[in-house]
């Protein structure tokens, strides 16, 4: 169940591979300011950069492309309407978007009756193989933010298999403790322990990551 090592795109220098092809520094620094200034081109750039990641988070939760797009749209709408007005996530713009999208997806997941169908599907077949990073296509390395994905992926890979599957099902698929216990056939206390241990390892591993959009 553990994700295989990620491949480094051929022809990239180690520095490039680590950082990934991000926006130019000037553009990066100006995007947040341009969004605050209601620059619609900046919003288009943000959507271009962040939508693949938000769609991934939402679709993994909801297993529904249309609903995932609705969630992503809500996340962008919230950020566009509130940027510069509220105290934003100190981790940065993309982290803020990710949090909104994930929370919205969880809210939808818990609010709909179809959730029972999804849970039944997961209980019967396990998580969809392509939802949580298992393998990467070379062209995905061109996606802005790929370097963050690599760091997160590496941190997840470092977890023991039983903790990794617990995190995948709970965090990325939206299963609650009791649903996870049923899915894995283990006591709920064991589920909690596995998740707590996993997150205790992930926290220091992910904390140093900085936003690549300012």
């Amino acid at each position, binding site marked *: 169940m553990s994700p295989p090592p990620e491949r480094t795109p051929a022809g990239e220098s180690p520095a490039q591979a680590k950082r990934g092809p991000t926006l130019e520094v000037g553009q990066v620094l100006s995007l947040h300011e341009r969004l605050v200034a209601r620059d619609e081109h900046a919003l*288009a750039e943000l959507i271009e950069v962040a939508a693949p990641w938000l*769609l991934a*988070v939402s679709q993994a939760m909801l297993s529904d492309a249309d609903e995932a797009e609705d969630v992503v749209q809500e996340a962008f709408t919230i950020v566009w309407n509130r940027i510069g007005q509220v105290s934003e996530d100190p981790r940065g713009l993309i982290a803020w978007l990710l949090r909104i999208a994930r929370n919205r997806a969880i809210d939808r997941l818990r609010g709909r009756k179809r959730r029972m169908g999804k849970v039944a599907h997961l209980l019967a077949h396990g998580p969809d193989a392509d939802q949580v990073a298992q393998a*990467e296509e070379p062209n995905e390395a061109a996606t802005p933010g790929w370097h963050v994905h690599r760091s997160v992926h590496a941190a997840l890979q470092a977890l023991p298999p039983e903790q990794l599957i617990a995190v995948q099902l709970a*965090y990325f698929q939206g*299963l609650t403790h009791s649903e996870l216990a049923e899915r894995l056939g283990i006591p709920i206390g064991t589920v909690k322990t596995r998740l707590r241990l996993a997150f205790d390892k*992930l*926290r220091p591993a*992910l904390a140093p990551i900085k936003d690549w959009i300012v």
Partner: protein
Amino acid sequence: MTAHDWYLENRVAFATRTLEPRDESIFANHLSRCEECRAAVAQMEGELAWLPMGVKPVAPRPGVTRKLLERVLYRPRARWWRWAAAIASAAVLALSLGGWTKARREIVELKTALASHRGRLVALTDSLSAILGAERVLQKTIAGPGYEGGVLIFYDKDTERWNVVLHDLPPARSGQTYRLWFVTRSGVLPGAEVRVSGSRPTFVTLPTPGGSAQVMGAMLTVGPAGGTSGNRRGVELAHLIF
């Protein structure tokens, strides 16, 4: 184990939203009261902020990026227009209501004024009918600098009272008053002091002086107030003899 230990154990579960919905609600309620847990959860959320990027990116379907941009940009405007339309409707309704209330108030005021005028008309008609039916009526015009008024006196047989009307006369100066006198066979008898407002006619109704004196006429004077000795006091303005 204390009650707070449950919250300590479930901090990371709350921060990652993996708690059962019911437990999540309980924890959220606790969070509003516990600064320590609030700070700890905020720190965990920050540390795990990038965990959602553990999933592989999903390439948007064709046209999705443009659709997202259009919806994000145009939805607030549509909402603004909806709000504007709602506000405009409310404003029109408020104006209509205000206009209706004002019109209703004016109608009530006009009705009140009409009722007052009708009352005065009835009183005047009654007075006129009394005057027209009276056997003895005397009237004299009184003119002075800047005014032209008059005095009317008549006897009403039904009530056996003398009715006096003063109109368009200026108010008496300070310390002075208008006074009506009756001319009888036994001499001039005092009637009554009459206050004149200047803007409206003054009506006075008086009994026959001495109860049964034979009235031959009347006089109107203006002079010092309080003179009831029977002497004619002040300036004579009108002398009327039947």
